[in-house]
């Protein structure tokens, strides 16, 4: 699989001084980074702080990011280092050994064990998260085969549009449109659950 780094256009924007492009990357990776840190640090109150620090450090270091590895790999390392540093400073011990972390590196996306991050969250938030997951799954079930296949190949298999076009035997423009329509169909089911009340924040 030789899909180009999907983050390259945004990183390019950040390097040209566009802070908003960095915000878009934050929105993309914040959940994964918080889960990662949640596995290293037992104290759930610390997780958001360390995640914030991770992104600030990444922002400062991004001129040095050369794209030799995927952006997430790079960010992952910064998160692990930031968490370790925080733990040293607080003289606490990480609950997960480094070896265990490393072995999980590869299947980070699919691993569903030890998802204890929600410990300190309110029951309401946990319920809301479950509703969101259920809505996404229901929406996926309701998609036509074409749309479901396109979004699955992209989001789960991580294929590029070109590769999906080859597999589905259609033009790249069609792939682009199918993935968009799949996302919109799922988002339509999600939007009632995603109302922030303080909508001006987004």
């Amino acid at each position: 699989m030789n899909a180009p780094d999907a983050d390259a256009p945004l990183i390019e924007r950040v390097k040209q001084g566009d802070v908003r492009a960095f915000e878009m990357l934050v929105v993309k990776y914040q959940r994964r980074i918080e889960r990662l840190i949640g596995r290293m640090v037992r104290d759930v109150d610390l997780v958001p702080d360390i995640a914030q620090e991770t992104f600030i450090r990444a922002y400062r270091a991004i001129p040095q990011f050369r794209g030799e590895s995927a952006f997430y790999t790079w960010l992952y390392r910064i998160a692990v280092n930031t968490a370790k540093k925080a733990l040293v400073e607080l003289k606490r011990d990480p609950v997960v050994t480094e070896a265990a972390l490393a072995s999980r590196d590869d299947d980070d996306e699919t691993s569903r064990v030890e998802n204890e991050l929600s410990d300190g969250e309110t029951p309401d938030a946990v319920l809301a998260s479950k509703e969101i997951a259920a809505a996404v799954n229901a929406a996926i079930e309701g998609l036509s085969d074409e749309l479901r296949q396109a979004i699955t190949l992209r989001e789960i298999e991580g294929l590029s549009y070109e590769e999906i076009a080859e597999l589905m035997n259609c033009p790249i423009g069609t792939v682009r449109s199918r993935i968009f329509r799949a996302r919109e169909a799922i988002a339509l089911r999600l939007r009632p659950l995603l109302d922030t009340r303080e909508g001006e924040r987004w």
Partner: protein
Amino acid sequence: MSSGSKHDPVAAEALSALVDGEVDTVLAQRVCAAWREDGSARSTWHAYQLIGDVLRSEDLASTASQDAAFLDRLRTRLAQEPVVLAPQPLESTPAAAAVRRQGLRRRRTWMASTAVAAGFVAVAGVVVVLRAPSGDGAAAVLASREASPSGAPAATVAAATAPQALAETVVADPEMQALDRKMLRDSRLDRYLAAHKQFAGSSALGVPSQFLRSATVDASGR
């Protein structure tokens, strides 16, 4: 497909393509501008990213208000950070962006030729240092003076004088030891080199050393 969102569908499709990194630089810039101005573009971007996360792993499901609060808090910290690299004005029209890119390209080619010229200036500088006491040296000083501010065309002058001058340094070599402590250098060259640390860092322009000798061997080898 009716999306129920207020923003125009072209922009939303561009957002979707940007999620996958399948956009060119002009479109990426436009989508970033939309994110800047349009709240619904921000919530759509969040929804698309969340969908991807949940598809890969259900435990990444998170409420929008949690995520929005995280970004909100980060924003206040980001605002205190210096802007990354060269801050450039953000123009919204592709035409303006194209013009700017062209300008960048021109500047890059200019810088490349200047870098080459600077290389020759460094060589010429060594020559100046070595040959200054002799009458002939005045010509080389002139060459380097011309070369430093004006770039590529002058570089050919410096390049032309360099091999000949290097050949002469073979003769000048014994004399060099005596001149060690008396360096004659154009003060403008000093300033130029101070601004280009990579040359100032080498010993080539200080006391004659490694760099000069290997160059001499090379010249005599021909």
